[in-house]
């Protein structure tokens, strides 16, 4: 397999193609490719309650 790896233009073109590929994948799978990548647990986000930037102590 002969790829022109010494030619900087090849890397620019390949990066462009990668961005385009990412766009295509994102277009088809807007919420991520099924079964690929990390899954968020339960979709919940832990938050810290603050008042005037100071954490509120648990009662």
């Amino acid at each position: 397999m002969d790829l022109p790896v010494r030619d900087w233009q090849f890397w620019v073109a390949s990066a462009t193609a990668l961005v385009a590929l990412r766009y295509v994948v994102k277009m088809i799978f807007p919420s991520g490719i099924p079964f690929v990548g990390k899954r968020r647990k339960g979709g919940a986000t832990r938050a810290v309650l603050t008042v005037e930037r100071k954490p509120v102590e648990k009662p």
Partner: protein
Amino acid sequence: MTQTECDRCGEQGDGELLTAAGVGAPAAGVMRIALMGNPNTGKTTLFNRLCGLRHKTSNFPGTTQEARVGSVRAEGSAPIHLIDLPGVYSLELDQHESAVCREVLAGNLSPRGEAAGSPDAVCIVVDSTNLARNLVLVGEVLARRLPTVVALNMVDLAQRAGIRIDPEELSRQLGCGVFECCARSGEGLDPLVGGMGAGSIPNRTPPGTREGLESWADEIFSLCIGHRHAPSIEGASTQNTPSRSRLLGLTDRLDGVFTHPLMGMVVFLGIMAAMLFVIFKLATYPMDWIDGIFAVLGGWVEQVLPAGILRDLLSKGVVSGIGATVIFVPQIALMFLLISLLEDTGYLARAAFLMDRLLRPFGLPGHSFVPLLSSHACALPGIMAARAIPDRRQRLLTILVAPFMTCSARLPVYVLVTTLLFKDRPGLAAIAFIGCYALGVGAGLVSALILGGTVLKGQARPMILELPTYKLPSFRTALVTTWDRSIVFLKNAGTNILAISIVLWWLGSYPHVPPPEAATQMRQMAAEMRDGRLADSNIHDSATASPIERSSTAPFADRQDRAAELEAKADRLEAAHAKASSFAGRMGRFVQPVFAPLGYDWQLTVGVVTSFAAREVFVSTMAVIVTGTEDAEDEGVLAEVGGALRDDGTAVFTTATCWSLLVYYVLAMQCLPTLAVTAREAGGMKWAMLQLVWMSVIAYAAALLVYQGLALMGIS
């Protein structure tokens, strides 16, 4: 619709937002006014008249409901942002459009890019020829206690029909401002815009029940009709007006023809044939210009930039990718212009009514007609037009089968294959062409029937459709709509096809392989010929002299021409070899056994595989593989493609292969942008996957049946 839902769905709605000049998020001091009304009250015409091109088209977050927000320039009042809400008969219906209107008025939903919160005022567009029924929606809005104004639209038609409405009495009864106007001619709009800016909370509260509201509407209607002659808008004559019965009589007489089961169908087929003829005939010219412009642009890029990978990427990936999208715009724009004009006349509602009889047995409503018709230009706007179908199940069915309709991107394949099948018999080629359209429609309807009885099983909702009175279309409204749709198409399809073109260019360009032996030999011969060391028997007829002696005596110009010819052949041979050895070519060779039962060799399979993302690249890919040149419109190149040979020396395009290929391309889902739009509009990737698998299986099975059937009959 909660904010959480909006945020979640917002991920899928990207790419649809379009910003037109002069419109953005409202600044402080800008009034936001919701424009509402029943369907067919001229709401869109009024919006276009007030905003022109100063609007943006987006959607309501978490929905596929289109939202248009326009900027109105009003003298002496605060700038206005007008939000065009979907046409509804009532806010309380269990329909998508009604829910969107309810949420917007409650301040829970705003068009993407607009600040959250209730609108500052509501403008309800009312059809003056149908006041009583329109007042029900007015009553529902008044009950929301928002500053409200009523636009009495189509007052000219009402006056011509002998209907006289007293706007002052109506204003008293409703407790809000009432303004007569004619959106089509633009009369009465200045007072209306002024009234929008000064709208106040109505001082009357209509009844809360449906029955009470209808009685209230009838009562107000009887109080405001015929009290006295309504002040005439300039230019709209109140004298010598034909009676309402005469106007309605004309509508009835026309409906007698247009909605007649037999005559209506004849008229419908005539109109559709004329429409398709105009689209494909007229669009040819701008398409040729666009093709020429992008060819020049590609050539210019190749001239200006030094030879290299980036030059190839720009000329063959970017420029051709943009060109591949823009070239379809004339057909799509013409299609939308004609659809918009037909809709404005009132005929499209009759066509939908007529088609309901034909589509209903297949589980589709008459509403599906416009999306399916639009899909004949491109499936993307067709699928987006399915938003107008109120029933979710029927909307999904329409979306799933829309890509079966023959879109413009299939035409180059049809042209190639029918030309190969019926060379010198254009009549038969035309019949085959029409057959492809019919096969696509038939496959779509049968698919709707099967899918409607299985994965989308459910009760079909009867179609309720208002047949508006006939009127002359507004060319201005049609132009604005066409512009809007074309921009949305370019934005959606353009970026997708450009990205796909770049990926395909990379896959088709790498890895580099050494040139084939034959090409090297040709170059060597060409070099020797230029030097005069090699003869060519085509140059001279002398049979006595030796080749070298002949070459040395051959004219210099002839030798140079012949050498250039050899070098061009070597170039084409190298290009074809490079394409076949590229990643795309290797993928084609790898999956070739899958397509072997359909009669496809590795060359055809490479064409099919590379056109998986966008079917329009099939012909150009075949041209590169077979001839080494991308000019797929050249007749010589097409003839060369038709004469392509397999590795065993037999023809690639046999009769059976051609039919198999034709059937495959009629039925196959070879368009990634369509998949993406289906996923977004249907509300999930599973629908897009179902569409892909369903169409691919049907296409493969049908092509297999055709090829093997013809082979059994001894037709190879």
